[in-house]
């Protein structure tokens, strides 16, 4: 479904992402881990189109999307969350999802109902998503007034409002307590049953090891290992990247 081919991004002399090849198949949950500054977030920005690649291609469902603007990629079915939460603070919880209904199917509605009122079907979808994230009771609250955990959930919910086929989660567990991480784990699994493919970028190794089918490890912009969670955990290059050379010996 998603195919990164030799994806490269240089910032001046810094090789933030350096020739990454990665394939994500339909229905998979793929974890992407790596130490700070290893290029994880840059990869997300390249996939969703906020940054143009220096070289290489992003292929989605067989089509090269490397030059498409971000909003067009959402229409194709790629949605993301942000590591540092970026909600529309002065809009209500409900409105945050309302403005994000931009899938191809949602866009193909008639102009007037789409922009002026919205169909009852669209409202129903928003309400269902809010229920799924335990946010229904906050629907008329301004997003800026939510507690941190609720904002994280809303960020996730907003990405789902566009009914994505591929979901890019950029450190969704950052700042969460154990219980919240558990719920997050459950939600990602539930979404897979609904046919959503997930690329999970995370520092929280336990979550990735628990939920991911396959894990890719980055270091200095390069992929140093890829495989099942157990395989990756045993890999010496990965241990080196995280713990340093001395600890491995």
């Amino acid at each position, binding site marked *: 479904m998603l195919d990164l081919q030799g994806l490269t991004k240089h910032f001046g002399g810094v090789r933030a992402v350096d020739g990454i090849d990665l394939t994500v198949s339909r229905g998979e949950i793929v974890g992407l881990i790596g130490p700070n500054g290893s290029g994880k977030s840059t990869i997300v920005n390249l996939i*969703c*189109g*906020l940054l143009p690649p220096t070289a290489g291609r992003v292929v989605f469902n067989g089509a090269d999307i490397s030059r498409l*603007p*971000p*909003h067009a990629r*959402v*229409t194709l079915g790629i*949605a*993301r969350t*942000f590591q540092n939460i*970026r*909600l*529309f*603070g*002065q*809009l209500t919880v409900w*409105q*945050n999802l*309302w*403005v*994000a209904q*931009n*899938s191809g199917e949602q866009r193909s509605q008639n102009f007037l109902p*789409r*922009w*002026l*009122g*919205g169909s009852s079907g669209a409202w129903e979808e928003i309400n269902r998503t809010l229920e799924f994230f335990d946010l229904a009771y906050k629907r*008329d609250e301004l997003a800026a007034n939510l507690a941190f955990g609720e904002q994280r959930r809303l960020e996730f919910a*907003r*990405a789902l*409002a*566009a009914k994505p086929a591929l979901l890019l989660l950029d450190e969704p567990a950052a700042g969460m307590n154990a219980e919240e991480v558990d719920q997050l784990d459950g939600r990602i699994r539930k979404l897979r049953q609904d046919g959503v493919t997930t690329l999970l970028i995370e520092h929280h190794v336990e979550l990735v090891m628990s939920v991911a089918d396959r894990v890719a490890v980055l270091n200095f912009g390069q992929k140093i290992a890829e495989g099942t969670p157990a395989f990756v955990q045993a890999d010496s290059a990965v241990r080196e990247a995280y713990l340093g050379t001395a600890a491995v010996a």
Partner: protein
Amino acid sequence: MDFYLGLMQIIGVHTLLGLSAYCVLLTGQVSLAQAGFFAIGAYVAGMLTVLAQWPLVPALGVSAVVAGAMACAVGFPALRVKGLMLVVATIAFGEAVRLFFFNFTYQVQAGNLKLGPHGAEGFRQIRYFPENGWTTLDVMLFIWTVVALVMAGVWWLDRSRAGAVLRAVGEDELAAQSTGINITAVKVSAMTIGGVIAGIGGGIFAHYTTHIEHVQFGVVLATFAIAYPILGGLSNVLGTLLAVIFIQGFLIEGLRFMGDWRNLLFGGLIVLAMNVRPRGLLDAGAMLALKRLVVPSKDRNGA
């Protein structure tokens, strides 16, 4: 009495000007081009009624379309720049429009009079209202009918999904793009709507003043346009109306008895108002209090 009717006319037209800036400001863009669109509307509507003998309402319609088309065309290049650079770019556009009308002469002989815009001397004799026997009261009522319609339209737009999308772009362009909003299309649309409203406002302005010239459409007017929604607050269109009443009714006319001291106080009072109410005269808190006044608490259910 005529003084108050005249004041009401000024407030009405400036409300239209403020609303045009309000629409653009919702997307987070500070545009000083609104006075330019207002000028285009004024000249187009004036020429249609004076030179082509059109009735007023269709003339206003055409001035709205022309100003809106101009705003759309300006929107594409101008909205590629942000923040202060956009302010500079839109000032440049506004001045270009003003200087165009400074040099624009198109006169037609009518009896022993020459009618039409005449460069630096301006465009005199826009006498649609007196020729058709409209009293000051009629004009005032006409203006406020238009203002009420436009305000209701913008209020409704504001509450629709389109309004939420405008505000989303204003809050965080990066997040808006990433949730699938085409921010260029949204910003250009907002600019176009703003241009349409400014065009209507300009068209009315030309007819009640009967004499327009380029100096009226300079940076000062552009600054007023943007000051209304900022001072009034962006929670809804009523804030803009309140700010126009405050500035035009109180600061400019109400303090006229103070002579030269007025200009000094003018700036000071605006700074004071912004300090006391940093989110605008009519912010979310004030709206909530108003709602409580109108709807007694027992009628509101739960939340």
